[in-house]
């Protein structure tokens, strides 16, 4: 019903000769997701302010769908493409076709491999690789540069997972820290799965775990619950998460978690559409436009707003 109304509404708009507005194609990661949904909403709201029409396509976390949606965007002869890549490589041919059709493209939220550079005008948003590095620094600080840790990673093969894990590992190597990664397990950004794998990790390594790095706060929560089950009276090792969720802030306040990294989905969405609007207006933009990433610990938890 909703879709029918929407179809009718758009048909009405289309028939009233409203074709002069610029249209931007936004290939988002998903419609219903804790981070993506507010980012999408912020982007669309800002677009309305800017007078830009947004054609929003959801990949539903399916890369193959996304590569095909890029073709849809090119066929629609839109004025610009904002892509949320879920794979560092697979979209390159699609982006190349967009370039052939003189449609400018930018990336939101996640980077792609260097091969993609020639085909995109800019990459806006938090760099997941950078986040991995920041997490490494934070955990390293908590451990005094020494100890052994476990990594609770997201979905295997997912772009965010790859960035956040490799950023973490590369940074540890780079800094020559005396930190050993005991194991990396996938928990698919799912709290329940994280809970289950954490139970097993705790059983397996026990006191060897000096620190924990979770690819997002949801999975960090899973580890905390597992730890409480296993050692109700013992304090958990320092846990570092990413995303800056509300409940992570609570955990940091109560000392259950060491730190998280705030990245605001609203900032993320707004920056992307602002950048695209500038490109359409013919302005030059920087090829890398980060959104602020803030490491939140007990020290500054009171002064920072949670992301969502």
């Amino acid at each position, binding site marked *: 019903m909703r879709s029918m109304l929407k179809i009718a509404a758009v048909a009405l708009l289309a028939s009233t000769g409203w074709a002069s507005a610029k249209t931007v194609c936004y290939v988002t990661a998903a419609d*219903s997701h804790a981070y993506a949904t507010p980012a999408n909403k912020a982007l669309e709201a800002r677009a309305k302010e800017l007078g830009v029409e947004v054609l929003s396509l959801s990949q539903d976390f399916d890369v*193959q769908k996304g590569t095909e949606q890029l073709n849809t965007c090119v066929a629609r002869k839109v004025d610009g493409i904002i892509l949320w890549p879920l794979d560092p490589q697979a979209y390159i041919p699609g982006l190349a076709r967009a370039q052939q059709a003189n449609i400018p493209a930018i990336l939101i939220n996640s980077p792609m491999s260097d091969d993609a550079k020639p085909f995109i005008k800019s990459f806006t948003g938090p760099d997941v690789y950078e986040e991995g590095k920041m997490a490494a620094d934070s955990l390293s600080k908590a451990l005094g540069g020494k100890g052994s840790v476990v990594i609770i990673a997201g979905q295997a093969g997912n772009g965010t997972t790859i960035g956040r894990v490799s950023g973490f590992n590369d940074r540890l190597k780079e800094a020559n820290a005396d930190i050993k990664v005991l194991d990396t397990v996938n928990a698919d950004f799912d709290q329940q799965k994280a809970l289950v794998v954490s139970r097993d990790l705790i059983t397996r390594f026990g006191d060897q775990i000096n620190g924990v790095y979770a690819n997002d706060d949801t999975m960090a929560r899973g580890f905390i619950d597992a730890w409480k089950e296993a050692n109700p009276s013992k304090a958990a090792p320092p846990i570092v998460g990413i995303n800056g969720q509300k409940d992570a802030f609570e955990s940091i306040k109560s000392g259950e978690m060491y730190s998280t990294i705030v990245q605001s989905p609203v900032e993320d969405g707004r920056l992307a559409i602002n950048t695209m609007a500038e490109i359409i207006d013919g302005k030059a933009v920087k090829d890398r436009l980060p959104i602020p990433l803030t490491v939140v610990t007990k020290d500054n938890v009171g002064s920072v707003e949670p992301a969502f």
Partner: protein
Amino acid sequence: MTRALVLASQYRVVIILGLTLVISALVVPGYLSASTLSLGLDRAATIGLIAIGLTVLLIAGQIDLSGGAVFALAGIISVILQREIGILPAAIVGILVGTVAGAINGALVVGLKVNSLVLTLATMLIFRSLAHWITNSQPVTGTDIMLSLALAKIYLEIFTIRSALFIILIVLLHVWLTRSIPGRNVFAVGSNPAAAKESGIASDRIVFLGFVFAGMLAGLAGVLQSLVTNTGSPVFGSELTVAVIAAVVVGGTRLEGGRGSALGTLGGVLTIGSLTIAMEFQSIPAYVQQVVSGLILILLVVLDRVVTTKGRAPGTRPALVRDDPITQGGKV
């Protein structure tokens, strides 16, 4: 009333496809342009290629859930090997991988005499795990990005290589299913395996080859996808199987075997493809799209069911048309 329903059911794919196109054309400006159609066709091609294989399998009374995993595995192999042996040989090896995967499915189903639903659920896990194992869960990149662009080129204003291949194959499949002896035997095996066996039809061989064929086409689709994106990823195709089954069933092929057609599958694939594009053009959220396609699927099978029970010719006994064809022709 009943007559109208029967007619509606017989031509349901045409009707639903027509409706989709008409409504889309009304609400989406420029929907019926060559570029949109070619786009729809190209997007339908991936689902379509796998659906070709699945059509044959479903008619033979089997199912294959591992198509999406084979799709990923074949693509990965074809990309990894590009550096070693060149693009074309690697692509051929990729298709062979799909064929072998299908042969494994077929050999296990025929050899162990097990239900293909559960078995291919298991091999889906196995092939998907292999894909992760081989790539260490990282996507792999091909050597020549220009080839990807060439593959996406549009010929005659409407066909990409991929969509042309799909159309040609499905027309060939139609001829084979309706006008060839082995094609008719596939129906016999799916409709009444015991009768087929006693008439000297090598049912086991047909089922086995059906799986091989399905695997080969999933492999082909995977290799093409990897060439078009210049990437092989272990997460490719994870959502494909459901879409493929939906397309084939919308096309009128029966899950219990014995009934189905290639042109129906073509209609089903095009319906799903054009519906998706029409809804995407309107920025309709993915979950609403899901509800719409789910409703269409359910409505079509309900219509089919209502018509086949009501429109049965008088004098035939429903008891003969059993749900489980295997129980027919057994011992008294």
